[in-house]
């Protein structure tokens, strides 16, 4: 699934422009991490793609189809999103009902719904919680239910909009493991919106945003090597990458070889 932003401009009010002449192409089957500090416009991109916000000017193409009021429902059929707050996206009164919500909207037959609910709850290891109420689940578990709900829609594109930012370390780990599993087992286009560099390091490609502009675009290794850009974008690099950068200032034998080995270790190349 291909997404293309063409000269997109967006602002919440007249004074502050969030996106200015924004251009971006996300290719089919790619896992892209959009990095940026708070207010850099990364969540806005996700909402624009889902048709939840209307752009001031410019075009967005979803699989070469122009996103507009006429095509919005059709375009949404190809995409699913997992938001930041697990509580605010739990519509059903039980896990089963919540996953069914999206499927009911697609007007799918009951048998198909039952099959998908069980299949994807098993995938996110939440099958034992099928009849549980949201109040009985932890933040990580609720987010896994949201992932199962998004997966059950069987869309080609999945967006994770800061889906770990409200979770504790255990919940964050659960969700990150799930994203990696989806990437490995499904041929989906995945967009991870985050300000956590470690989370972004699992992606095939990282896009760094600063005040609505793309300031870096490349593989995790390429982007993380550019320490100055990360710092200027208000992002704190990963601990392991910091060590590599610090080693640059030291003198020792086989410096470049060791550095290369550390980069490889960091990104599991």
């Amino acid at each position: 699934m291909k997404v293309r932003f063409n000269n997109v401009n967006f602002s919440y009010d007249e004074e502050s422009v969030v996106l200015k002449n924004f251009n971006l192409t996300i290719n089919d089957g790619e896992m892209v991490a959009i990095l940026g500090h708070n207010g850099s416009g990364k969540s806005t991109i996700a909402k624009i793609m889902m048709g939840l916000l209307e752009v001031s000017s410019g075009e967005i193409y979803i699989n070469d189809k122009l996103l507009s009021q006429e095509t919005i429902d059709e375009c949404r059929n190809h995409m699913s999103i997992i938001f930041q707050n697990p509580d605010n996206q739990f519509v059903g009164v039980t896990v089963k009902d919540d996953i069914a919500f999206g499927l009911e909207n697609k007007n799918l037959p009951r048998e198909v719904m039952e099959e998908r609910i069980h299949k994807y709850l098993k995938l996110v290891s939440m099958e034992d919680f099928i009849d549980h109420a949201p109040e009985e689940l932890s933040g990580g578990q609720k987010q896994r239910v949201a992932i199962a709900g998004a997966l059950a829609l069987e869309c080609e594109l999945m967006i994770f909009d800061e889906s770990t930012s409200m979770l504790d370390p255990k919940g964050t780990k659960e969700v990150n493991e799930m994203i990696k599993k989806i990437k490995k087992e499904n041929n989906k286009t995945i967009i991870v919106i985050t300000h956590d560099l470690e989370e972004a390091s699992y992606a095939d490609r990282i896009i760094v945003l600063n005040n609505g502009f793309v300031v870096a675009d490349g593989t995790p290794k390429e982007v993380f090597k550019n320490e100055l850009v990360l710092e200027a974008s208000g992002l704190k690099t990963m601990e392991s990458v910091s060590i590599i950068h610090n080693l640059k200032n030291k003198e020792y034998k086989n410096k470049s070889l060791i550095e290369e080995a550390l980069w490889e270790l960091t990104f599991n190349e």
Partner: protein
Amino acid sequence: MNNIALGQYVDGKSIIHKLDPRTKLLSLMLLMVSVFLIPKPVNNSFGRLASFVMLLVFAVIILIIVLFTKISLLKYLNSLKQLAFLFVFTFIIQLLTPQGDKILIPNLNLNLSILGLGIILLWIILFIIFRKFIPCKLIVFLILTCLSIYLLTYDLGYSFTTVTLNLYEDGLFNGAFFFMRIFLVIMLSTVLTLTTKPTDLTSAIEWYLHPLTYLKINVSIFAMIISLALRFIPTLFNETGKILKAQSSRGVDFKEGTLKQQIGQIISLLIPMLVISFKRAADLADAMEARGYIPGAPRSKLNVMKFSLSDLFSFIVTIVIVTSIIVVSVI
């Protein structure tokens, strides 16, 4: 805050849980109406006996229903606890309202003496100071109120005026009758909310409102609104609890202070609650829209309602109860 039973579905596999939500909704509505059909106790012993026997029979029926739900009685009692003051208030108003000829306690002279009022004032102050440590506050408060009234019947000296009250026999019976009536209705509504998922309840309401679609009224939107409201009641109560704790940690005491201070304290709770609720509503609307919800568009249903033999049986039992009450009331 966590004791609110409304909207809190308790998962279970009991016969009541398994009933078709349409049957449950209609049957419980009919039973609620029939509670109101039980005639008020009339001014003769047979009439009173008949009314109270009918209420008692109804209470037994509800108790059987409650036992069938296999949900802890504590859950039901928690929902009643919230309305305890309504029960007491109704009872006291009925007791003091002049009605009927027979006076149970005539000329109950309450001597408003300095000493008597002083002792009552002392009780109230001590109650307010130590209420955090008092278990079953309502019962203790009621005992203190009765003791205060009893104390005022004695002239303790320095009496400046005397108030004469008549406690009417009909007032006592009517008070007990209304108390029972509210109790039974609340119990019935609690059975419904504890054993029926909000989504099922909504489906049932949607089904009953279906004829309105012929008048071009979009029933599914109303059903979704009700469903979401019921879904978010526990969440918002949890949120209120968190704000209460956060404000308390900043020194706001919701239980103390003058009326003006208490209004200020309530505002400090209401404003963040409103802001959070609007934020939640906006996020939820985004999440629903992103998951393909289009108001009014056709949607399939995962939980298909099925009218079974047990539904038929329950419905027949309800009709028998309602008919019996109507017949007895007419006689």
